């Protein structure tokens, strides 16, 4: 299999993954609103319907609850459904089937079956879609045992992790930040998987650890480049998976750098960084902490419509830069 790298966008990488999965395994099929000839609201499914037909690329009515439940039922009979929510916010309509059914059936049945489905969620703010179309709800799902929750930040990871998610015998919630869809990156050709339980160190550093996910990984990397000129060395970790979370990579890093900043788009309180901070404090890294842990998360309000307010509602590069400086210079 060729390992050539070429540049694909995040959404192209996902489309490629879906196509490869459907070629390889006839049990894999797609469901979602407008994913057929329309190509998907974010053009992710594109022309898959022309390659695989409407029986495998199924347009659903606007019925998120039943759509999610159909995925559960089909998965129970060993099909491999990939259900696309048009916006992650619409998960609210399907919570019953996701949380009460998909997450729990295996456990409630004493391990005698599995629910091998994938649900894909375009998420995140920055497009002016406002409060009901811009949320980052990953934390809701990471709170539920029985689900897996992943959030790749690069095209290569999007492809590999989606293929792994489709192979995975348990329900995987796959979050795709909308602003990443156009981002281009090197993507290996052919079929490959990335693990669903490993964080990745995107940048090595020694003065402070930043743990981030999705688009915040890229903002953190930008901030790290800026402060490098001031002699500050930042280690940036891309979480990639929220559940299961790769705690040991985080712990090792904080033991090394002694400082931690969590950057995430979801609401700050009860969000991803809250879990990371608590886990670090409960671990061997506690005795290595030389500064309070900083959480940079979404503001305590629904996502606003006005573009300046929208930007102010989530962490931006200058916020991260400022937090790095204060943490490293011992001023917090």
């Amino acid at each position, binding site marked *: 299999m060729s390992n050539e790298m070429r540049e694909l966008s995040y959404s192209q990488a996902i489309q490629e993954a879906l196509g490869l999965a459907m070629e390889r395994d006839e049990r894999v*099929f797609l469901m979602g609103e407008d994913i057929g000839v329309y190509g998907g609201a974010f053009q992710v499914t594109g022309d898959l319907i022309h390659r695989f037909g409407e029986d495998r690329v199924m347009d659903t009515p606007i019925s998120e609850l039943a759509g999610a439940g*159909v995925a559960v*039922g*089909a998965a*129970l009979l060993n099909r491999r459904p990939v259900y696309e929510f048009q916006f992650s916010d619409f998960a609210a309509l399907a919570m019953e*089937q996701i949380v009460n059914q998909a997450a729990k059936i295996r456990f409630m049945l*004493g391990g005698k079956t599995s629910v091998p489905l994938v649900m894909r969620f375009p998420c995140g703010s920055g497009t002016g879609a406002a409060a009901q179309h811009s949320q980052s709800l990953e934390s809701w799902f990471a709170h539920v045992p029985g689900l897996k929750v992943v959030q790749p930040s690069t095209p290569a990871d999007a492809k590999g992790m989606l293929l792994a998610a489709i192979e995975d*015998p348990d329900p995987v919630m796959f979050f795709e930040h909308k602003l990443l869809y156009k981002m281009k990156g090197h993507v290996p050709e052919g079929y490959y998987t990335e693990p669903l339980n490993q964080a990745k160190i995107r940048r090595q550093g020694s003065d402070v650890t930043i743990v981030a996910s999705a688009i915040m990984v890229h903002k953190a990397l930008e901030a790290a480049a800026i402060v490098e000129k001031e002699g500050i060395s930042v280690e940036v970790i891309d979480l990639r998976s929220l*559940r299961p979370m790769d705690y040991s990579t985080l712990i090792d890093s904080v033991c090394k750098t002694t400082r931690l900043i969590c950057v995430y788009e979801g609401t700050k309180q009860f969000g991803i960084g809250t879990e990371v901070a608590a886990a670090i404090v409960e671990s061997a890294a506690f005795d290595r902490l030389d500064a309070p842990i900083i959480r940079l998360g979404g503001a305590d309000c629904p996502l606003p419509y006005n573009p300046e307010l929208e930007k102010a509602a989530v962490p931006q590069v200058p916020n991260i830069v400022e937090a790095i400086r204060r943490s490293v210079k011992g001023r917090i």
Partner: protein
Amino acid sequence: MNDRINQAQPAIYEKLGRDKLHKALRQMHLIRMFEEGAEQAYMRGLVHGTMHLSIGQEASAVGVGIMLESGDYITSTHRGHGHCIAKGADPKFMFAEFFGKDNGYCRGRGGSMHIADVASGNLGANGIVGGGLPIAVGAALALKQTKKPNVVICFFGDGANNEGAFHESLNMAAIWKLPVVFVCENNKYGMSTSTERSTAVKNVSQRAQAYDFPGVTVNGNDFSEVASAAGEAIARARRGDGPTLLECMTYRHRGHSKSDRNRYRTKEEIDSWIARDPIQLLQANLLANGLIEDEEVAAMVKSVEDEIEAGINFAKDSPDPKVEDLTAFVYTNQNSETSNV
């Protein structure tokens, strides 16, 4: 609906044959005695939580169940003990599950509301009203995708017919012409709220019109009516003609759950339905038509009593799950997915 004992032989009896009719009657006795046994065990403090008994609804469970083949599937409700038995579940493993034992159907993790046996086509009782409907539609989609000649029976109660999931599921089953039969056991009450107060239409079956497929209402306490209508709906689904909504009018003798004080219905109403016991109706009909003898009935009842008693003893002697296994069965590849710090 005609509640008078119909002594004439229904056509379905000939289709089923003597053996299957005996099997049906035995199953109904088994369900009844299972429920009564479970109730007794509960009152003795052997059962944690609560339970939702289907005493009085045996004919709809068995009438549908007897028409199924082994490759067919069911989804069930929180009042699903009867469905499970009608789909072939073994009472002793059901009792073991109620007692929270490690060799119950769900290894003690699910309890009464989540009894399932996926391998034999029972996709499970469901603790959420309306929770099983989309799942049944999904299973039917899988059957269609794999070109299997099988069907899914989706049991639900009158309460579920006002859930959004009901409407979304019927619509999806219709547009994709899926092999699912929606069986509504209308026992007139969603917990304490009567259908008159909760549902905009007089009969749940009317709602099938909104989704442009057949809706049928039958006397849910008449085994032959249920079996006959079920047979037609199942055949329609197997043919690939899509779903049917089959409404079985019935009644539950007991309250909604063990904490129900029956404040919402009168004693007269309850008694009038008890007088129309579906098991007695079938049994008398079979006797009258010479399809069973008194001695056979007595032997049948005795064997059921024995089976229930043995089942309860089996459950009492079964091992408890280990506390160390608390977080087992959450994920399929458990060790590599440990998320603990």
